């Protein structure tokens, strides 16, 4: 199953050469691993995904999760995958030894997650949320919660969820109303949560919900929210489970990711739902946000993976489908000639190259952000840790958004490559397009991420994160400047950094005047603009690494492989990066057309 859904060679190139995984493995925390064992792990997870995941991808779409007789029926592979993942170590991998884990860096775990998501994006969420829920318990929960829940979660016996969203509180979590009433050493939970991924499914022995609720009398807004463990079935301390008054109301019918259930849950309908406080009172949202960087990288990773799988599928089709003829030097087509493969038409090549630059650029961003996460956590020097923590903060909204937004555009181009078949369910491309749609919505919409980028991250600590990021970019520019064939591109990227300064000066002017609505009104075009430039940087870095390998005669990949990376970088700088000029014009416009409600901009009815 070579490149049916993923190009492992590119993954390894990015991991080992461009992002120098060795640097992380040399840190004391991770030095029980080496690059050979990680290589073996990657191959193992690819084999695992070939066997346990990819064969069920289409089936899970055709047989969606659904609500029946009070429970949610999912594809039988869900339970098998949970268990098999536990045995593989995919659930425990990132946890420290003391929690029964294998202390693998996040960069490696994300590489493994990427392979699985490319194989079948309907499955990894089940373990991803279980990992996230277990992480919250190990970080903030007491010993009792740790012992009761974590081992069963990490071996794949019990699932986990994140219960934040309520009907009136989606983007705005400060409006959460689910209540927690003190009841001895525990709380009674009452309220409903919607859109809860993996919230209930047939065959799960237990599901451990990590739930945000407001303790009676708590302050309004985000400051009054606490975090609770609320199991579907509560352990009685003697090895038995008793129902905990968590009712599954229904499963949402969705346009994509249909095998990954999305549930509506009602807690405490009979007044008997026990919740156990995690950490301190009123710190719930803060705890959730501490875990948010990882969750957002995971969303970007999923979108990057779908985009890569769609690229492989359309690339294969383009090499098999013969249609039309190439133009002869007369400008005409010779109808007596055999039809050519569509990969030979420049317009098809353009679409394929777009898929390639977006998917590989997105993957590079995911791995770099993960690396910053590892360095911010595990470096010895506190000042250095702080540096990478800031870099992680600024990249987090972007790593969530770029793969989701541009990934969708790239997959859409993949559908186009298949012509009419792209629209038909005989071919897989339409499924990728439906599946990727959710990534720019959950875990904070693009609008919310863009406001986070412009409103918080760009300005945090007087622009220090942005300054650090610019320094990283300048280091790449400097290294590329000495390579003849990269010099011009390095110059262009330098000019874009200057343009960014101009844009920010114009936008920050509004903030200084106290006009925050205007400052953030075009946060999303700014996200488009800024992420486009970051991906240009990452492509220049890939081209630099490839060029270096060609110069030194590296044997890790063949010449064609390295040359293809340089070609793709040129494509990115020629077809994608110039879009930032138009975006800059949009962002710096002074018309404020989206602000204000005085005019009837949507006609007479509204």
């Amino acid at each position, binding site marked *: *199953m070579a*490149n049916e859904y993923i190009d492992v060679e590119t993954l390894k190139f990015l991991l080992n050469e461009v992002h120098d995984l060795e640097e992380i493995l040399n840190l004391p925390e991770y030095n029980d691993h080496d690059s*050979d064992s990680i290589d*073996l792990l990657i*191959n193992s997870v690819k084999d695992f995904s070939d066997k346990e995941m990819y064969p069920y991808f289409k089936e899970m779409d055709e047989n969606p999760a659904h609500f029946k007789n009070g429970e949610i029926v999912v594809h039988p592979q869900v339970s098998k995958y949970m268990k098999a993942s536990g045995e593989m*170590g*995919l659930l425990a*991998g990132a946890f420290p030894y003391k929690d029964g884990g294998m202390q693998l860096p996040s960069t490696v775990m994300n590489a493994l997650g990427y392979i699985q998501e490319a194989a079948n994006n309907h499955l990894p969420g089940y373990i991803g949320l279980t990992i996230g829920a277990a992480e919250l318990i190990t970080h903030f929960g007491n010993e009792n919660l740790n012992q009761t829940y974590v081992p069963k979660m990490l071996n794949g016996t019990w699932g986990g969820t994140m219960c934040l969203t309520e009907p009136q509180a989606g983007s705005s979590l400060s409006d959460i109303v689910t209540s927690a009433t003190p009841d001895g050493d525990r709380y009674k939970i009452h309220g409903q949560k919607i859109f809860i991924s993996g919230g209930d499914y047939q065959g799960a022995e237990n599901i451990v919900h990590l739930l945000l609720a407001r303790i009676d009398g708590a302050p309004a807004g985000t400051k009054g929210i606490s975090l609770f463990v609320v199991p579907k079935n509560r352990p009685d301390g003697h090895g038995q489970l008793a129902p905990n008054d968590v009712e599954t109301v229904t499963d949402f019918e969705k346009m994509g990711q249909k095998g990954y259930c999305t549930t509506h849950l009602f807690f405490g309908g009979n007044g008997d739902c026990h919740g156990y406080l995690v950490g301190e009172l009123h710190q719930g949202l803060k705890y959730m946000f501490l875990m948010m960087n990882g969750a957002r990288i995971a969303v970007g990773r999923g979108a990057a993976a779908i985009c890569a799988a769609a690229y492989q599928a359309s690339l294969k089709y383009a090499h098999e489908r*013969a249609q039309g003829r190439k133009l002869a030097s007369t400008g005409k087509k010779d109808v007596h000639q055999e*039809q050519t493969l569509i990969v030979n038409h420049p317009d098809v090549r353009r679409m394929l190259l777009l898929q390639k630059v977006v998917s590989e650029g997105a993957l590079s961003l995911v791995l770099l952000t993960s690396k910053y996460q590892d360095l911010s956590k595990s470096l010895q020097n506190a000042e250095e840790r702080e540096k990478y923590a800031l870099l992680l903060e600024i990249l987090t909204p972007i790593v969530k958004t770029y793969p989701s937004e541009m990934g969708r555009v790239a997959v859409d181009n993949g559908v186009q490559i298949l012509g009419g078949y792209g629209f038909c369910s005989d071919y897989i491309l339409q499924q990728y397009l439906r599946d990727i749609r959710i990534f720019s919505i959950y875990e904070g919409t693009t609008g919310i991420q863009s406001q986070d980028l412009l409103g918080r991250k760009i300005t945090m600590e007087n622009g220090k994160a942005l300054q650090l990021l610019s320094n990283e970019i300048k280091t790449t520019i400097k290294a590329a400047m000495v390579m003849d064939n990269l010099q011009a591109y390095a110059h262009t990227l330098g000019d874009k950094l200057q343009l960014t300064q101009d844009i920010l000066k114009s936008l920050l002017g509004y903030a200084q005047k106290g006009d925050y609505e205007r400052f953030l009104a075009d946060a999303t075009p700014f996200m488009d603009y800024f992420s486009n430039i970051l991906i240009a940087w990452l492509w220049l870095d890939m081209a630099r690494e490839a060029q270096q390998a060609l110069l030194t005669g590296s044997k890790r990949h063949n010449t064609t492989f390295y040359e293809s990376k340089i070609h793709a970088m040129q494509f990115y700088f020629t077809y994608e990066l110039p879009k930032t000029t138009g975006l800059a014009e949009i962002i710096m416009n002074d018309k404020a057309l989206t602000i204000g409600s005085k005019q009837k901009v949507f006609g007479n009815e509204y």
Partner: protein
Amino acid sequence: MKILVCISNVPDTTSKINFTEGDTKFDTNGVQFVINPNDEFGLTRAMWFKEKQGATVHVATVGGAQTEPTIRKALAIGADEAIRINAEPTDGFFVARQLAEVAKNGGYDLIIAGRESIDYNGGMVPGIIATLLDMNFVNTCVSLEIEGTDAKAVREIDGGNETIATSLPLVIGGQKGLVEESDLRIPNMRGIMMARKKALHVVEATDAPTMTADVKFEKPAAKGPVKLVDAGNIDELISLLHNEAKAI
């Protein structure tokens, strides 16, 4: 029971194969290497003997340092120790001679090799090892059971199977059937971590002649584009299968 599983380091079947130096050498750049599938069936059967009958399992390969990931995988699957004979595997006789030397020194009861490796398909290694060591030999082995020193082996023959009673010490040339594909094991994280701590001995090669040299490799002709035929147009399909694909 002490078992030696001989492992050949071969390109993944999905790798793109190219030749260099006037088509006399295989270009290994960017190629993913794996345990030879016939050897993997044998290794998996050896793991069964380890788990059910308390056997000790060693693996050996002939190759440079670049083959170590492949034998590490065998360790991650559960083999106890690995031996790498530090030499280029130039031809079948040379390889068999090296493995026989290791086997002789290790005092193994059972030597499991693959019926053939999927790269050069020589198919001679297990037979030569058995000859050099003067041991019983069963080739194309699809089933193996052992009780004490008695062995019952099934070998695939044209159109059927043949069951053979023999005894240890024994060499087999194994293949699919020893275990099924669904029995093959994917190393898990813990196994991979433990493999780093297991012994991997590197030994130098013994003198042995290389009896053959590659003169030229040729690849099959490249595949043409796919032709889509209307579901109703059987005549065109038959004509294409007959005249172009020459499949009927």
